[in-house]
């Protein structure tokens, strides 16, 4: 087998795996967005003055950050089968029998825990004087959050957010373990059919590297845009 042949087959594998790119992106984007929406509530609970919501939110974050994502995926996908009649009576079996639903649910609940911590940290970094200024014009608590606190918290959290997005794109590979044929799933299939795992998985790695390169570039631009007016003038 000639040296160039490896490259030729990597190119072939790239073409084959590209079918999985939209699926990987769908898994990542859907779970990041769902996780984001949930994380706003969890972050608010983390910062709550009341004991119970804070306790529940802390417990949730602790559990989902301390156990492997793969275990969470198996628990939801395989575990739900054990309670089939319960899910059927709730009318939810149609969802839980779907690998796609279980994968996105597990990924979303997982990233939600991490995002909640990021958002809570961002909210803590908002100077109290800015909150008081918003209260002083008569804004309601909700309005203060939407108009002043949250936009600033996102700016604080953005650098760490790019990290979370990159981690999530890589984490979607775990969905291949429950039959989903995204990039890694297709690669496993192709490797066992061609007996050329080196080229196939090298190609899979390249696809992830390219995707995350795009994410990093996007965040760099986004940060520059949001910071354009916040940097102290010199």
């Amino acid at each position: 087998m000639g040296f160039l042949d490896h490259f030729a087959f990597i190119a072939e594998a790239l073409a084959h795996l590209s079918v999985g790119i939209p699926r990987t992106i769908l898994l990542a984007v859907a779970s990041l967005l769902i996780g984001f929406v949930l994380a706003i509530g969890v972050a608010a609970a983390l910062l709550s003055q009341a004991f119970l919501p804070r306790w529940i939110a802390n417990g949730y974050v602790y559990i989902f950050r301390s156990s492997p994502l793969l275990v969470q995926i198996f628990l939801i996908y395989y575990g739900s089968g054990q309670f089939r009649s319960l899910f059927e009576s709730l009318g939810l079996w149609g969802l839980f029998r779907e690998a796609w639903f279980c994968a996105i649910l597990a990924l979303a609940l997982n990233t939600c825990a991490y995002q909640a911590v990021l958002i809570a940290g961002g909210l803590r970094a908002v100077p109290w004087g800015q909150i008081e200024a918003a209260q002083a014009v008569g804004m309601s608590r909700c309005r203060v959050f939407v108009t002043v606190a949250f936009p600033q918290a996102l700016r604080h959290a953005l650098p760490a957010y790019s990290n979370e997005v990159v981690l999530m794109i890589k984490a979607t590979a775990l969905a291949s373990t429950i039959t989903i044929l995204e990039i890694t799933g297709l690669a496993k299939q192709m490797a066992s059919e061609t007996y050329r795992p080196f080229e196939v998985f090298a190609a899979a790695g390249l696809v992830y590297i390219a995707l995350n390169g795009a994410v990093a570039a996007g965040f760099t631009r986004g940060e520059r845009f949001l910071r354009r007016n916040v940097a102290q003038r010199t």
Partner: protein
Amino acid sequence: MQALVATDIRKAFGSLEVLRGVSLRANKGDVIAIIGGSGSGKSTFLRCLNLLEVPDAGSLWLNGITLDFNRSGPAGGTTPKAKAELRRRLGMVFQSFNLWTHMSALDNIIAGPIHVLGQDRKEARAIGLDLLDRVGLADKADAFPAQLSGGQQQRVAIARALAMRPEALLFDEPTSALDPELVGEVLKVIQGLAAEGRTMILVTHEMAFARDVATHVMFFHDGRVEEEGRPDLIFSNPGSERCRSFLKKFL
């Protein structure tokens, strides 16, 4: 005509009694200067007026609404709705400006009118640009706080307070965080507002300014009003020894 009345306001932080019963009566058009040493309670009192600090006891009256802090429980005066109404009707200018750093100068000014008063965006913008012009910053509408000097930021903050069409303006040491050469531009704006007959309550260390602009001066000491009256009398012939020695440091 009365605009704002505070009666026997008391406030403690833990065991530290910061306000031991302070009353204030502002008629329409009054400019009340509050002076006193640090720790005398003057800033806390001002913050009590728009409930950034909630008094432990006493009452507030602002043309038509009364908040009574002597009653306990949620039935007392400080329901979120009453709180928001009081704040909406009072303008506040902070020592450290507290402009929202992620918004342009104009957006800082129109956020309140749009979200709290329910003005439409176009109307709010027109009024906001007008106010920026009045504080001498017509060309800074799109500038962000970080791109403005301290004096400019404070003038935007004054415009932000004015945009709410407040019945009275509260100033918490508005020039104390400014470089000396920037103090004048802010005082000039405040003086202009006084000349318009706006009701203002001003915590300040600028004694000369208080003497020239105020209609009434209150000297705070240790959580109480030690002395108050017309500025010409207070400044030329203070009655209490404490007030005299305090003023001596400034004039």
